């Protein structure tokens, strides 16, 4: 294992120190591993927090700032944060208008956020609403599993719900916007390599030079199917067709097309993939209203990519275009 770290057990702590040093507009509660807006809480504004295991950067800490999240809780690598952390974050961002918890659908995340919401209600009486993302079409038989995983849609949801909160909308409306994003978004990913968890020191799974794993999640958990390595064109089809069929997306639907790197794939390859994805969408008559290309929800050093489509109406598009100022997303300001 070659990693730019001091010690495996200090990775999360050291990275939080780095975020604090690099971004003076953010503060860090190191005891609780919570990144939050230094200028908060904002009276009368709905607070939005999220969180999850570390290793997905810039998700979630890189999305804290104006027009997006008010706070993010960093768990251990690939491990959900604990209820104390979400409780601390909820207190830090509550400006009296309630707090939205954005939770990715993983068993641990859901349970820990649930316990945090129970504690927050008991301790502070804070009005907490949770929205769970579950956009991964790779999980097919979701009635027999823990359900679909929350992946790429989480990034788009945090941006769009963040804009709604910044406009001063009440909690129920912000949550409604968030649910609408999740309902209209679908994703799928593939891996070219495993990732290596620092504390483990070796790849989580073995993948041959001529193999790829289709339908991976973002924790190095193996996907649904192992296949021979294919061209970007073929990969685009393997990812996009199941997404299109699932919602389904129809001719003349307007979408955000989000091509995401999983951490170890260079941007030039993401653009190669984006071009193939855009061609398929164009063949289906799906209109790409906005695009996002880059590594925004990652799996440490895993090579690979995911595609997310979000069907837009005028409201979601306006909220997407609204100003945002965070370490990882920044426009309109």
């Amino acid at each position, binding site marked *: 294992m070659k990693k730019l770290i001091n010690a495996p057990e200090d990775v999360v702590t050291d990275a939080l120190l780095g975020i604090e040093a690099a971004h003076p507009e953010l503060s860090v509660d190191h005891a609780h591993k919570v990144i939050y807006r230094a200028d908060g809480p904002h009276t009368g504004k709905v607070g939005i927090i999220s969180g999850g*295991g570390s290793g997905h950067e810039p998700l979630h800490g890189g999305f804290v700032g104006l027009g997006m999240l008010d706070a993010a809780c960093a*768990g*251990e*690598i*690939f*491990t*959900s*944060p*604990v*209820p*104390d952390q979400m409780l601390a974050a909820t207190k830090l961002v509550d400006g009296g208008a309630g707090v939205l918890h954005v939770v990715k659908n*993983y*068993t*641990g995340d859901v*349970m*820990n956020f*649930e*316990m945090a919401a129970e504690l927050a209600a008991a301790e502070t009486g804070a009005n907490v609403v949770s929205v769970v993302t579950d956009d991964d079409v*790779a*999980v*097919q*038989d979701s009635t*027999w*599993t*823990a359900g679909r*995983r929350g992946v790429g849609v989480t990034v788009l949801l945090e941006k769009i719900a963040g804009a709604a909160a910044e406009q001063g909308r009440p909690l129920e409306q912000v949550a409604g916007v968030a649910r609408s994003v999740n309902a209209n978004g679908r994703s799928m990913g593939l891996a070219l390599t495993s990732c290596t*968890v620092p*504390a*483990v020191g070796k790849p*989580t*799974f073995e993948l041959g030079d001529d193999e790829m794993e289709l339908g991976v*999640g973002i*924790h*190095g*958990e*193996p*996907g*649904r199917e192992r296949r021979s390595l294919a061209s970007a064109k073929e990969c685009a089809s393997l990812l996009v067709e199941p997404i299109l069929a699932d919602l389904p997306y129809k001719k003349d639907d307007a979408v955000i097309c989000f091509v995401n790197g999983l951490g170890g794939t260079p941007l030039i390859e993401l653009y190669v993939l984006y071009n193939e994805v855009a061609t398929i969408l164009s063949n289906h008559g799906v209109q790409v209203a906005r695009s996002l290309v880059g590594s925004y929800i990652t799996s440490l050093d895993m090579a690979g990519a995911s595609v997310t489509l979000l069907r837009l109406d005028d409201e979601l598009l306006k909220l997407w275009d609204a100003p945002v100022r965070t370490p990882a997303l920044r426009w309109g300001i």
Partner: protein
Amino acid sequence: MSDGATRTDLEQWVRAFAQQVDDNKDLLTELDAAIGDADHGANMDRGLKAVLVALEQDQPATPPALFNKVGMTLVSTVGGASGPLYGTLFLRFGGAIGDEEPVSPARFAAALRAGLDGVVARGKAEPGDKTMYDALAPALAALDAALSDGAGWDVALQRASSAAESGRDATIEMLARKGRASYLGERSIGHQDPGATSAALLVAAAYAALRDCA
């Protein structure tokens, strides 16, 4: 059967569990790498080490206080699904064990039942889902059966531990329906569940620590 387990004996159970997890943390992580995300050993070990530190700092005076502390510490330090699940197990165990010492094996079994009910409420697991439930439920059934046959701590916990191990082994052929392993579908078959493995260690630790309570 007038004697039973004291608060100190019960703390020995927790300490034995911490030791067993420490001894087996690489195995737990390896099992988790096959069908999960390769962190079960590290997470449980971190949580139980934190429990040991917490018990050094402040000795809870009664069995309920002991298990409340163990449960809250695990919830705060383990993360993942195991934190809320093991945390809830110990919190509910503590809520049901009662202040009175010594604790009879029947009261221990009833408290463990309350803990298992808490795990089910939190995790919504059903039999055969390939989870910690599949080790704990047979252990509880064996414990109850042995106690109603008139067995004491030693025999009852020995049977419970052996049932937990059989339950753990039976998870190998199960199709995972909960947690991250469920995403693998059929590919989860053929792998032993890490949660059932740590749960079997919990029961084995009870046998090791409490067998001599007469």
